[in-house]
């Protein structure tokens, strides 16, 4: 190993850059050569440069303490994660297959529920899913696409195999970081890109817009598409406005919209203007106070009625949250076989359902060794990592599982793969995952790579930005062989 990598210890984990013998993996060779030449001080200077550009662009989230909010940037690590071409082809195949099955599943459970009748998934699981919307049964969506934008998180275990950790079929966020990370890397290490054939990511906004235009009501060839945001105080507001800007469309808040005759209009300086497709970054619950949460000030009263009348398309569709349910997740491999007659390309993480008696007994007997997750939480909330949990926490989750078996699942602890990161002047390994962004439009497209999230705290397995996670640029190479 060279330069600042000399002291690097890959540890007992699957390391993205070095193999078990400590030899650099071929697709990282050029990178090691270039970064090996850099002094830590030079590295630090580059890091400050990158962070400053995030700050100046306002790519920040607000942390409130006392009466004043301070704006923080998401920590950005300069060492890219590199995915060889063939490895990516495999991931792409798996994700396309999975999203295809999820969309068929949603079509099915909001219509005939054949998968229940054929005994693949118990009806009770669907009926009791927190985000299942019985009021939408029988309602058709354009082109049968429910999840237009999907983020199915991938991790790699100790053997380097890719596993699906969870599906995000509601409002997966983070794609703006992915795009900005690439910009930052180009600015800070311009010459590095000459040495690698890295697939570009910049077309994502255009592909997103194409997917949104594809599902316009009544096949309207020239629809008005808008982004609906909870507002400027939302922690993901930067991303909402970023995407609107990159697509060249309006960003609206609930108050900008009004419903007349079951049609959606926006309030403009020249009067009311019809809206056809809404890329909404507001959860179902807050979308329409006349149907869902009455106390929501973010939503648009009457929008669900306009939606049901088929006069506006919402992306993602209403009711997709049922597919994010971690109990439903358990059944995704079965769905793939049922709807597509194929073996799943990307396996799930082994999962135990506490709603099943035998599983529950196992879970309660092995709590300190397992990861327990609430079925309907996300963002790293409502979860316990057994080996890192206190006795009180374990006891709390035990009670919770017994009180509400349907509400929890458990999984063995997966030691996520690690990637070298620049931390406090030296290179150390940190656990990472991968959030890809899959678009379902006329065809399924996946932005090459995705957002690699990094658990910046030493030893931590939690990568969520709300829990102090960072990110790094993710490169998919045109060529190359990986391990999977």
């Amino acid at each position, binding site marked *: 190993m060279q330069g600042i990598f000399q002291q690097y210890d890959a540890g007992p984990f699957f390391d993205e850059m070095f193999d078990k013998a400590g030899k650099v993996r071929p697709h990282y060779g050029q990178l090691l050569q270039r970064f090996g030449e850099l002094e830590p001080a030079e590295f630090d200077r580059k890091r400050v440069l990158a962070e400053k550009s995030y700050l*100046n662009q*306002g790519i920040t989230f607000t942390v409130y303490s006392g009466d004043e909010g301070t704006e923080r940037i998401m920590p950005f690590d300069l060492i890219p994660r590199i995915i060889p071409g063939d490895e990516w082809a495999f991931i792409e195949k798996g994700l396309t297959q999975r999203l295809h099955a999820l969309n068929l599943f949603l079509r099915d459970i909001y219509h005939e529920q054949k998968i229940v009748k054929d005994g693949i998934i118990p009806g009770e699981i669907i009926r009791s899913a927190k985000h299942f919307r019985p009021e939408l049964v029988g309602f058709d969506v354009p082109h049968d696409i429910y999840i237009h934008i999907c983020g199915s998180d991938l991790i790699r275990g100790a053997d380097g195999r890719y596993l699906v950790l969870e599906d995000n079929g509601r409002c997966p966020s983070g794609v703006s970081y992915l795009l900005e990370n690439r910009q930052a890397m180009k600015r800070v290490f311009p010459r590095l890109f000459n040495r690698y054939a890295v697939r570009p990511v910049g077309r994502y906004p255009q592909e997103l817009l194409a997917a949104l235009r594809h599902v316009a009501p009544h096949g309207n060839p020239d629809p008005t598409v808008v982004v609906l945001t909870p507002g400027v105080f939302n922690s993901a507001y930067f991303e909402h*406005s970023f995407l609107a*800007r990159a697509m060249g*469309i309006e960003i609206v808040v609930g108050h900008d919209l009004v419903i007349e005759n079951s049609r959606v209009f*926006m*309030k403009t*300086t020249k009067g009311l203007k019809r809206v056809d497709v809404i890329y909404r970054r507001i959860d179902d619950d807050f979308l329409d106070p006349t149907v869902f949460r009455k106390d929501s000030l973010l939503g648009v009263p009457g929008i669900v009625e306009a939606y049901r009348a088929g006069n506006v398309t919402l992306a993602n569709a209403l009711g997709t949250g049922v597919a994010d349910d971690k109990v439903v997740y358990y059944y995704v491999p079965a769905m793939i076989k049922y709807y597509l007659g194929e073996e799943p390309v990307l396996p799930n993480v082994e999962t135990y359902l506490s709603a099943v008696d035998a599983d529950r007994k196992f879970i309660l007997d092995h709590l300190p060794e397992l990861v327990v997750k609430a079925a309907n939480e996300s963002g790293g909330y409502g979860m316990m990592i057994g080996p890192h949990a206190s006795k009180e926490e374990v006891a709390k989750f035990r009670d919770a599982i017994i009180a509400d078996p349907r509400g929890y699942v458990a999984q063995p602890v997966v030691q996520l793969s690690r990637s070298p990161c620049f931390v406090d002047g030296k290179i150390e390994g940190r656990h990472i995952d991968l959030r890809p962004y899959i678009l379902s439009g006329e065809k399924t497209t996946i932005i090459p790579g995705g957002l690699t999230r990094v658990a910046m705290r030493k030893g931590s397995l939690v990568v969520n930005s709300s829990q102090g996670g960072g990110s790094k640029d993710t490169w998919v190479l045109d060529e190359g062989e990986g391990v999977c």
Partner: protein
Amino acid sequence: MLSRVADACLWLSRYMERAEANARILDVNIQLLLDFEDQNEGTVQQHWQPILATLEDQELFNEIYEGISGDAVMAFVTFEKKNPHSIISSVTFARENARMVREQISSEMWEQLNRLYLYLLSPAARAAFIDSPIDFYRSLVDSLHSFQGITDATMTHGEGWQFLQVGKFLERADSTSRVLDIKYHILLPFGEQVGGNVDITQWMAVLRSCSAMEAFLKISHGQVTSWGVAEFLILHDTFPRSLRFCVDSLDLALHQISGCGRAHFSNEAERLCGMLRSNLDYTNIETVFSTGLHQYLDQTQLRLIEICDALVKTYCRWLDEE
């Protein structure tokens, strides 16, 4: 364009213009103070009090500070977050509005504004201020000018840009009238005469705070008189900070937005603005002084407020419904 966006564009540029006006006024006042050798507590207070009067912030100032001093007034108008009209508050509000319309304005505009905001919050800004207030205010004005230049050079001159113009010229007309009115609040020291040394120095300061000194001298042949300065800052047709120029530009932007010809009006804002514009086109300085300069400026400020209200009613009436 969304009504909410139009409203945000208007206020974004009003706040930026307000920050610039404040920086100019303070810069000139410091320089003016350095022109007078005989300073005691009384004269210092007399020197700074008019600033608070023109900004109409006297009450709030009294709540926060004990007694008027140069440092207190500068801190209040520059860094005081409790003062909604301070430079830091103006830039903060401008940035909040810019955040709401980030997809409308160019990234370059946003970054310039955001850099300025981050700088004002940083210890570096305080240090620069302590080191040399004059340089500090100059660099602020520079930075705000860059924003104007970037805006003109990088943003489509469509409806959003026109609303920025509306905000800019409304605020600039207002601030020119206030700067001119400062003289009304400044008492001449005992024994000094109208047209005397101190009086002329003060009028020159008024010119400087509008960046009008050089332009004025070109046409006045070196004669600085109250009438001359007032005429220049109110009625000059092509100086970009004169009231007449600002109202004319405001009128143009309003007609660009509606698409209505300039000899007519299609809404109340255009009607009111057209009347003010024609008043400025056809009045003369004798009439202004016979009305009374202070009264004339006061009326003009009220008319600007009416135009702004009518504008919001025309284009952003949806916003009132909530």
